[in-house]
């Protein structure tokens, strides 16, 4: 009887460790793009913190992450750009974009309080977000492609190519 109880408890704890909603979100991202290994250049435009938000399966964990593209309506990554963030206390952070346009703030690096504002900058050009970020840690939570009633479309520097 005691053994049965312990087994049931162990099974319950094990089952309790799974989050099917999180697993569904991870699965919905699909497989890696062919020829792109897991790493800083993978999965541009996807909601990074689904996997890199602390619940796995991605590692490391990011406080905030996303992808910037050169212009609205096309998918050339914005390489060498800067993402500027500033919160209502005036604290700021600048993040660089890599070859894939990806950028991220590692765990505990963000140092800002919600809400905060974002701007994309490159080569003397700058575009600022109209509204603050209230709680999303992946830009693609609100900036997924294609643009539609519930998405503003991807993050870009130029409104026209």
């Amino acid at each position: 009887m005691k053994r049965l109880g312990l087994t049931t408890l162990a099974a319950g704890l094990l089952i309790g460790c799974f989050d099917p909603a999180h697993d569904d979100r991870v699965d919905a991202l699909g497989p890696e793009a062919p020829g792109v290994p897991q790493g800083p250049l993978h999965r541009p435009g996807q909601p990074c913190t689904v996997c890199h938000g602390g619940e796995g399966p991605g590692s490391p964990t990011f406080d905030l992450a996303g992808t910037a593209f050169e212009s609205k309506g096309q998918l050339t990554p914005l390489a060498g750009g800067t993402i500027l963030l500033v919160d209502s206390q005036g604290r700021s952070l600048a993040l660089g974009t890599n070859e894939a346009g990806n950028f991220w703030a590692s765990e505990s690096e963000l140092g800002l309080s919600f809400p905060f504002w974002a701007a994309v900058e490159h080569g003397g050009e700058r575009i600022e977000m109209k509204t603050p970020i209230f709680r999303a840690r992946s830009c693609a939570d609100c900036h997924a492609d294609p643009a539609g009633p519930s998405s503003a479309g991807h993050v870009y520097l130029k409104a026209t190519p």
Partner: protein
Amino acid sequence: MNRLPRWTASFAAIALGVAAWRCSGPSDAQRTPFTPPPRAGFEPVSDMLQARCGSLDCHGQVARNLRLYGVNGLRLLPSDLPGTEGDTTTPAEHDRDYAAAVALEPEIIDQVVREGGNDPGRLTLLRKARGTEAHVGGAVIAAGSDADRCLTSWLASAVDAGACSRGAEIARPAFP
């Protein structure tokens, strides 16, 4: 054709009578009409809620119970996009925002409105916004602020449009 026994007919008649009585609704005298805050003049309240609560990462999502539509957040028409330059929140979106706010706790909002907006903190909408009740978004409307006056004036059926307009503005510090 055989006739039903008299007791069967009597029983059926009584059953029908009881059913009719039990299934009928309350009389008009017993009904209490729902008294929501006014829809007229709600637009500035809606704009304030949209700015502070209705971003795409908060209540501008279809899965939220307080689902807010607006020009810079969730759009109602499939052809409309968030943040379109020169666009405005549509009357149909204001209608949806009104319905979302009023339908959260209809019995309580009815009481608050009947009592002239007294003790609006009875509403979860206020408590969540003020952060006095657990809220993932934290305190997005400080008690006594313009945004707060906007909401409470609406509940008192006297919308303070100026407070709403000021409350919809969220000061942004300059980028470095």
